[in-house]
């Protein structure tokens, strides 16, 4: 499993804010996803209605999850595939290794899969003498750099073109050192050539799954590069990794969700390749894998059912929430310290690895609500982050200073007269002190604010309540 650095979120975030390369990359990327999504949504008048439908399909499936998983398995078996049920990441790693060993695999190609990041499949295969090769362009460079994705659909979101060129020169040492990368497409062409060899060598191909379909026993992947399809078509064995909440009942259900997915993710009407795989190669087929395995993983999902966090299991991993998040936009994905960044990560990570290590994540939000407003399956992300904050408080995981300040505030908030008196006194004092300059450069107990900007001094005229009372009196007159 990927190491968790979420407890160091504040330090991670501070480092990210001071990293000029990262800030440049975040700045370059920021607008692109938003504009493309807005355009795609504007071109589909039914989009809002489809979001409700997407939410309802997922809710219906989750309420009957046992039935649909059972039905799904029966169809996979009928099509000549295998389903491996795994309760824990350990179980799943063991099953994948066993399949690869039986296949005599030396090289394994991989399509982009967030569940495989969650399981840490690559490290496990490497430790056992099998070479995993990431084939998604972004994942490929991260594997070269020994990094993890910083975004769930654009894994190399944090890199600039210069990083790509430098890494390719450093690691593709068989190519002429003085070759020119005049355009981004030269970088792409080099990766294509390098990876083509790997696709042809691989004994096993591992992909994730965006959906599983109970009606037909199919797994669905969505890509733009075609790497996922080469991964699941050329090797003799295909393994699809999927967590249990990926199942949907029918092709029609999957179709409605697909109308939401690409638009929300990349702002495309449809991804370039949307592929349905059902079982192993048929008798007269000329290509396709001879073995088809689905590794079906619980990995903590069943614990979320029946809780406040069941709604999170609707997530279709489009990344719209992080693309629209001001916090993600400022610090990038690595600061969050585990596999899933941004608002969806701030809800999901505590569910999967525990709130004791991840309490800072649901606090890393301004609650501006943009994430919820763009979520294609209408997950109330701010509400769920608030639930985590409440649990953190109940379990006394909140730092002492914060707890005592909150208690102090609560004491005043329950006593309106004391509250008004205290705010009046504070405003009066601050107004008097700051009258000269009009603002404070620094202020005791407000260092967190004044470190980044000045605090304006209150203007004469009293508190909001005092002004409101005066205005009401004036209106009555």
């Amino acid at each position: 499993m990927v190491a968790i650095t979420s407890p160091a979120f504040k330090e991670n975030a501070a480092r990210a804010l001071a990293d000029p390369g990262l800030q440049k990359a975040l700045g370059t990327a920021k607008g692109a996803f938003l504009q493309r999504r807005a355009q795609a949504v504007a071109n589909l008048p039914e989009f809002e209605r489809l979001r409700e439908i997407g939410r309802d399909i997922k809710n219906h499936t989750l309420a009957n999850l046992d039935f649909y998983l059972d039905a799904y398995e029966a169809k996979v078996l009928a099509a000549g595939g295998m389903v491996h049920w795994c309760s824990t990441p350990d179980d799943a790693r063991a099953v994948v290794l066993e399949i690869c060993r039986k296949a005599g695999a030396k090289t394994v190609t991989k399509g982009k899969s967030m569940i495989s990041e969650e399981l840490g499949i690559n490290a496990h295969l490497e430790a056992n003498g099998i070479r995993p090769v990431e084939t998604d362009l972004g994942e490929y460079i991260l594997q070269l750099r020994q990094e993890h994705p910083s975004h769930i659909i654009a894994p190399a979101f944090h890199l600039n073109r210069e990083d790509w060129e430098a890494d390719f020169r450093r690691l593709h040492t068989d190519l002429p050192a003085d070759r020119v990368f005049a355009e981004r497409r030269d970088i792409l062409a080099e990766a294509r050539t390098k990876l083509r060899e790997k696709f042809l060598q691989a004994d096993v191909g591992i992909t994730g799954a965006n959906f599983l379909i109970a009606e037909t026993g199919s797994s669905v992947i969505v890509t733009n590069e075609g790497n996922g399809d080469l991964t699941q078509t050329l090797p003799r064995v295909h393994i699809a990794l999927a967590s249990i909440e990926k199942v949907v009942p029918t092709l029609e259900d999957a179709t409605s969700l697909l109308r939401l997915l690409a638009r929300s993710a990349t702002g495309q009407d449809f991804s370039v390749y949307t592929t349905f795989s059902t079982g192993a190669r048929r008798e007269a087929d000329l290509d396709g894998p001879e073995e088809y395995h689905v590794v079906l993983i619980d990995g903590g999902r069943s614990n979320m059912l029946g809780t406040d966090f069941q709604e999170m299991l609707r997530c279709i991993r489009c990344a719209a929430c992080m693309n629209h998040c001001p916090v993600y936009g400022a610090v990038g994905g690595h600061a969050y310290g585990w596999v899933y960044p941004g608002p969806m990560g701030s809800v999901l990570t505590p569910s999967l690895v525990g709130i004791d290590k991840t309490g800072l994540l649901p606090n890393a939000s301004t609650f501006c609500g943009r994430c919820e407003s763009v979520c294609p399956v209408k997950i109330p992300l701010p509400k769920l982050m608030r639930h985590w904050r409440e649990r953190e408080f109940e379990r006394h995981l909140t730092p002492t200073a914060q707890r005592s300040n909150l208690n102090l505030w609560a004491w005043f908030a329950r006593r309106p007269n004391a509250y008004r008196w205290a705010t009046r006194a504070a405003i009066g004092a601050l107004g008097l002190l700051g009258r000269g300059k009009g603002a404070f450069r620094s202020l005791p107990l407000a260092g967190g604010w004044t470190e980044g900007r000045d605090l304006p001094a209150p203007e004469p005229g009293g508190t909001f309540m005092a002004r409101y009372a005066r205005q009401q009196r004036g209106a009555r007159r």
Partner: protein
Amino acid sequence: MTKEAILGAIRRGLKRGPLPAEQQAMLAGRLATHPRHLIPARSRLPRPDQVALFIRNVEKEFGTVERVPDLAGVPAALAEYLAAQNLPSRFVMAPHPEFEGIPWADRPLLEFERRRAEATDQVSLQHGWAAVAETGTLMLPSAPGRPTTLNLLAETEVVVLRASAIVGAYEEAWDRLRAENQDARSGGFMPRNIMFVTGPSRSADIEQTLELGAHGPRRLHVILVDDDLAALPMGDAVAPPPVALPGGPAAPGD
């Protein structure tokens, strides 16, 4: 057993036991009848406009389309496309029965082999089973006559598609598949693989900037065979009917 453990954990979470028989029958009915949800209005158009929408959407996604009156027009269209792109006249072709009726001898310089694709192939000619106007998407189910590798390995993929195989929305294509396709292995209708292809392969992983030609084809060209009188552009609707096509107007259920 792990399966029972996981299903048990799901039921505990949902605070219930196994579903009652009635509920299970209702859900089985939902699977069997697979009800449609909202279908966007954009593809509900007269046939000529539906085909025009398909073409517009392919072009929007950086694919190209050329219309020919019948299958006999394919060799010339292909030869001219390859020449214009400065590509060799050798290609790998889907071993699809419908392609056997094409008069390849009309263009003797075209060289082809009927097989799956290999990494060295530069051009592939694929058989289009259906296409979805809603997003300009080709639907390519795997079959002995339609190998999946033809969609992936060559730098240039050319797809021969009958206009009669263009539908408005994905749901219509699913219903056609259910009606026409028999899969001997599963007893159902799903072949091993179905690729929905919308334009040539691409990546935006470098600085979120789109570049064409990632791991799949760099070019996607559709040769659209106008076998559907009702789908011809309005001005052409009075043209004499094309000569009868080998294999009939609709693709056989392969």
